[in-house]
């Protein structure tokens, strides 16, 4: 149990540090901005209770908000993403087949499922994020372009990260 806890905590800290000190300075003009920190929410254990998932998503969004000085923006996006994650996992997986600590990583779930999972959730997160940031519908095309460009960048980074920390199926 403590093993799962420490592993997630370490991942949380590492991802936040990468996001804040490295990726905050990276971006293709204002068009594509990577948000790798959402990988922490993606990789929480499959059987995590809902309240804990929401709490952790909100907190990670909130921490990022503090560094980015946009209080509430990332928190809102992460909350929506947590709901999407619950729906996605209920629809595509039979949860009782998995052990309590298992995480939905690339190595555990296979490329196809993981890619689909990461793409959907990243896109949802980025849509909410950029919509709330723009806060109007008049520049919807620009917002959409930003969403798509940033999503692609984030997904590439997520896959790179997963390949670096690749573990074969543990079962």
């Amino acid at each position, binding site marked *: 149990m403590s093993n799962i806890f420490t592993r997630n905590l370490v991942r949380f800290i590492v991802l936040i540090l990468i996001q804040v000190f490295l990726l905050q300075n990276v971006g293709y003009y204002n068009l594509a901005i990577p948000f790798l920190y959402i990988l922490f929410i993606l990789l929480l254990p499959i059987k995590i209770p*809902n*309240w804990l998932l*929401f*709490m952790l*998503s*909100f907190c990670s*969004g*909130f921490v990022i*908000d503090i560094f980015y000085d*946009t*209080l*509430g*923006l990332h*928190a*809102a996006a992460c*909350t*929506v993403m*947590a*709901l999407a994650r*619950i*729906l996605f996992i209920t629809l595509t997986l039979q949860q009782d087949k998995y052990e309590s600590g298992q995480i939905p990583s690339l190595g555990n779930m296979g490329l196809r499922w993981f890619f689909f999972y990461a793409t959907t959730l990243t896109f949802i997160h980025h849509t909410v994020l950029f919509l*709330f940031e723009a*806060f*109007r519908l008049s520049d919807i095309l620009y917002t959409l372009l930003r969403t798509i460009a940033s999503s692609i960048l984030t997904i590439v980074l997520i896959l790179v990260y997963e390949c670096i920390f690749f573990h074969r199926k543990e079962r």
Partner: protein
Amino acid sequence: MRNLWIFVSKYNAFFLFCIFFIISLTLLLNNNTYQRAWTLNVSNQFIGRIYEQTSYFKNYLHLEEVNNSLALENARLKNELRSSFLIDRAEKHIVTDSVRKQQYSYIVARVVNNSIHLRNNYLIINRGTRHGVERGMGVTGPDGIVGVVREVSENFARVQSVLHAESRFSANVNGSIGSLVWEEENMDSKTATLKDVPGHVKVKPGDLVTTSGYSLFPMGIRIGTVKRTELKSGNSFLDIEVTLSTDFSSLQYVYVVNNLLAKEQQAIEAQPQMP
């Protein structure tokens, strides 16, 4: 009760989502300038429209008072007309008046919502950018000053009334100038306090308090009358309690003061001072 609990726990994801989403939206709207401004603007528009409808009906109840005050004001204005002065000179010149240039114009507006019991009170009026109202313009009523325009949308404006903790107006009593505030401990909508008037100035109850012409209003608009004055110990300034002449509780028609020379004045005030 049990069924309710089952229902909630079955869809717990949704309820949790609502809770956290509302928290983050609240944070977002309260702490980010752009989003906050947008919401205020939209809700101003929307709420303004609703209030306009309700006040349309409410106005009928106050018709008599309004009529009286309008009639009084008409009488006062007629008194100031040139034609009401007796001209006893035999000859007449026609002088093209190049000295007087209009400095203030007035936009008449109806109050659609009004509060007087809060710490910080606002009024909503049914005039906005479309009618030439801008942020920072002064607002007067038939009896005296009312406040300052704070936010403007297309058809409505939010006026920060005198009854607001942050309101400060430059006021004139017996030729000496002080600033009118509505203080923390004072929750009465009929009185305000005049500060910064030097202690040597002779002020007695009943003296007229008017605008000084330094701020948004023309000189000499009524603010109220002196009710009580006292010199606090250890302080060289008087604390003057002023009975406001505007009755905020029954305010219906107001005038937005458009200072035509305001831009020019601000431009020169904004210039850095030469040493």
